[in-house]
């Protein structure tokens, strides 16, 4: 890059010659743009495009998918992924949308509560999920101890039951990510001009009807974009399942991210692992296209 900018210094002729407010750049500016974009271009090609192409090539053999289809663990894993992402994303987003209304309150203690509420987001994922695992494990975990000592109920062995273990993964994910989206929606609500609400007031839209006919339509696009983004992120999420349930019971709650990684690095079959990950591509490509179109259409970005 330094070489590029050096030659640009030489190429720079008297700047006054260039009329300002020109439509498109030319001459030395063109070279400058190249210099500005080179670092990202290099990162993109070396660490994204090349690995992606390599991954597609790894998973390109149709035989791999036959192999996957015959694996009795594959289909349940796909179902787990869909349940985990489907419930996780929607509860997170809808909860965040409702909570953002709660945090709109101006009172001092609710503001202080928001600061505390953001803590899971700032906390690194591994310690948080290790703690979730530890909270639920055995009869002596914090949750079962609470149930036992406060409510006198004998808690279940969480990671022995399929639904409880899957539920634990989902709840941990919601705990970690709801604060971030709440903050985004809170900002979205704060950007809605007050006069719109004043007008709605005159028309008698209060409470739920105000939410349904004023707030939600105005936040609709933001809500959709955030939902798409968090869906794409959660499909690739390895850490939660790896640390909270770790596939328990008996690898029944694995999602494609953990399943593919295990195939690639523990069973030593990277192409099969890549194929497992690629099997969700038909779902992800439409989501990605929709996301990009939405972002472009609104100039409303995240």
């Amino acid at each position: 890059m330094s070489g590029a900018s050096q030659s640009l210094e030489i190429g720079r002729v008297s700047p006054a010659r260039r009329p300002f407010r020109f439509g498109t750049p030319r001459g030395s500016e063109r070279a400058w743009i190249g210099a500005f974009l080179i670092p990202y271009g290099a990162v993109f090609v070396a660490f994204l495009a090349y690995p992606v192409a390599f991954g597609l090539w790894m998973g390109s053999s149709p035989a791999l998918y036959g192999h996957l289809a015959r694996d009795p663990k594959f289909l349940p894993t796909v179902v787990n992924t869909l349940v985990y992402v489907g419930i996780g994303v929607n509860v997170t987003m809808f909860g965040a949308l409702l909570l953002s209304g709660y945090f709109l309150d101006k009172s001092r203690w609710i503001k202080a509560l928001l600061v505390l509420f953001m803590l899971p987001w700032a906390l690194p994922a591994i310690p948080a999920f290790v703690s979730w695992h530890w909270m639920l494990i055995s009869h002596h975990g914090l949750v079962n101890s609470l149930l036992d000592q406060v409510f006198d109920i004998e808690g279940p062995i969480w990671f022995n039951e399929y639904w409880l273990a899957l539920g634990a993964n989902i709840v941990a994910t919601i705990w970690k990510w709801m604060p971030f989206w709440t903050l985004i929606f809170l900002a979205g609500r704060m950007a809605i001009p007050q006069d719109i609400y004043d007008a709605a007031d005159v028309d008698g839209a209060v409470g739920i009807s105000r939410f349904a006919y004023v707030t939600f339509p105005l936040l609709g696009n933001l809500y959709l974009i955030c939902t798409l983004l968090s869906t794409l992120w959660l499909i690739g999420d390895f850490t939660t399942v790896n640390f909270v349930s770790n596939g328990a019971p008996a690898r029944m709650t694995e999602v494609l991210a953990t399943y593919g990684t295990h195939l690639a690095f523990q069973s030593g079959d990277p192409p099969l692992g890549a194929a497992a990950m690629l099997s969700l591509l038909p779902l992800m490509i439409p989501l990605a296209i929709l996301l990009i179109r939405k972002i472009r259409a609104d100039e409303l970005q995240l």
Partner: protein
Amino acid sequence: MKRLGKIALGVGLVVWTIMPIYNMILVALDDDAAEYSGHLWPSEMNFESFRVIWTQDYWYLEHFWHQFGNSCFMGFMTMVLTVAIGSLASFGLGRMRLRHGWVLGHVALLTYALPASFLAIPFVHIMHRYGLSDSLWSVIASQTMFATPYAILIFQQYGRLIPLELDDAARVDGASPGQMYWRIYLPLMAPALVAVGTYALLLAWNEYLYQFLLLSSPQSMTVAVALDQFFDSDEAPWNYMMATAIVYSLPPVATYYALRRYMVAGLTMGGVKG
């Protein structure tokens, strides 16, 4: 009545938020993790596990401070590179009136559509080819690559608040694009730079899979990978592990709370200007 409901919800949120964090502290303060007995309160304040971390007095924790340094280095480099590369690219795309510049922005956005775990498998192979296996730089490269599209997006959005006339005025005064970037763009973008930098730091600190797959020797390991080693052993002392987890959590939490104002302003400015 309405007020009562708000207070009830508030109390619920506090319990919900605090519980796993309280659990970390509870386990870390337990004196004998082997016989974990389900106390709701720590029976005595036992800071033994923190002393063990401080003095690296246990074989899983032999290199703890070195690994902590590795984590810091990785987080810091990811932050610097993301901000530098992202701001250069968004200046080039957004301020220079590049025709078809948006195409590049969209290509960057496509990174979002890639699940990190899918890319991990080929990424590890490619890093071997580059001769970067077991190197912190491979992790830094992966995190920078994931954080930069978001950085470009936020910078582009935030950059719209800076009038293009400023650039024109600078041009008339004979400033080169490089000077415009350095003297005008960067200073005015400061809040967004801080926000994105913090975001990149938190992203790198949160990440586990790439560090786990790419770093294998105790010398290059980060705390995230070292933490996972506790799971390899049946008799691992859980109180040490939780204490390690707490120490590991402190830098991002402190950073977040120190820079909270910038962060919220930067992220949401870029985020929701309709």
